[in-house]
């Protein structure tokens, strides 16, 4: 049922508070509600932090409990947590959300145009598929055309994301 546990070395994401949005490693457990936490590579000083504001990630580091900051830093850099984190979907979603909030009026217009164009292409392909399936038999043609048309809309996603980034 639970896959991520609070343990020594667990990397956690801070969801609210003064250090919101940063990653920390759990160094030690103080009591039921608090942990000693340290984020040498993310700009968080070694401090006590309540579990409530932490959200556990998939990463675990290897260091003994109450290890000093240098050890935590070494373990962090050895595992390359910063890069691994940036590659996760979680971090990408956060980044996309931030970008969307920063969009200006002109950007919104450009995104609207890109979305419209993409949907048109998808609809076009769908219509083609439907026509094919309605004209001829269902089995042979549909299975052939389906994988081909799915590739086309996915390639349109990439330019849209690029436009949003602009």
């Amino acid at each position: 049922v639970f896959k991520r546990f609070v343990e020594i070395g667990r990397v956690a994401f801070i969801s609210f508070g003064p250090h919101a949005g940063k990653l920390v490693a759990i160094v030690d457990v103080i009591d039921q509600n608090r942990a000693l936490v340290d984020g040498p590579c993310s700009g968080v000083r070694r401090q006590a932090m309540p579990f409530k504001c932490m959200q556990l990630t998939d990463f675990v580091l290897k260091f003994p409990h109450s290890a000093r900051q240098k050890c935590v830093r070494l373990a962090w850099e050895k595992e390359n947590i910063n890069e691994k984190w940036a590659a996760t979907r979680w971090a990408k979603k956060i980044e996309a959300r931030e970008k969307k909030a920063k969009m200006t009026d002109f950007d919104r217009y450009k995104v609207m145009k890109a979305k419209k164009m993409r949907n048109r292409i998808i609809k076009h392909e769908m219509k083609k598929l439907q026509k094919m399936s309605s004209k001829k038999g269902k089995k042979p043609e549909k299975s052939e055309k389906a994988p081909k048309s799915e590739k086309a809309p996915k390639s349109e996603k990439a330019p849209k994301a690029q436009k949003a980034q602009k």
Partner: protein
Amino acid sequence: MAGEKAASEKKPGEKAAGEKKPGKKKTAEKKPAEQKASQKEVGEKKKKIKKHHASRNPVLARGIGRYSRSAMYARKALYKRKYTAPETKIEKKKKEKPRATITKPVGGDKNGGSRVVKIRKMPRYYPTEDVPRKLLSHGKKPFCQHKRRLRASITPGTVLILLTGRHRGKRVIFLKQLATGLLLVTGPLVINRVPLRRAHQKFVIATSTKVDISGVKIPKHLTDAYFKKKRLRKPKHQEGEIFDTEKEKYEITEQRKSDQKAVDSQILARIKKVPQLRGYLRSTFCLSNGVYPHKLVF
């Protein structure tokens, strides 16, 4: 006594140093001692203006001087110092008196000949009580002297969103701020049918999108008077036909068309350089579900 003597000795000496024109004339009499001083004066005249003498009225107690007004007059030699400012050109012109009367021809019954009419006539009514003096007010300026401010987010070339008026929701390019503080704005006309027009700063959203308008020359005659609405106001005989004479239908004058063309042609070239900007200006701004203006970044 000694004090007076010293004071009287001081007088001729100081006179020469302190006074320029009359002093100069007097130094001609006292040649040997004063020649140096006069030469110095000429040289010094160019550099410093006037060396002011210390007070010739020694203080007895605070606010009380030793000498009376008339004694001071003599001590300061004011009988010699009577200056008049040179007559300026304006004063010379002023001497020409304005025309008081004008002659007009007599028409009507007693035709022919002329009569003399005063230009400035005496008032035909004097109020029984004088006009009461108005209370002093501080800092209340008329509209023409008000300070005009412009938001920092609005610079020439900014795309603005109009919020009121018949062009509400349209995106428009800001050109400059006019003398009354209103913003001069243009569609351009071919893009969204907004002509050269004035917009109020408060009823406008400034977006962060800017077009480079650095080289665009806006004609100088586009002022508030140019854009002001014209009203006819002289029906001579009001016999029920008042409304017909007033200008109901607004007609676009040729001058407006030519000005529009002149400005827009310069701007359109710059708009073309930015991709998708033309389509952006053509579209209108609107809110929909889940869109909250306080959360939008413009």
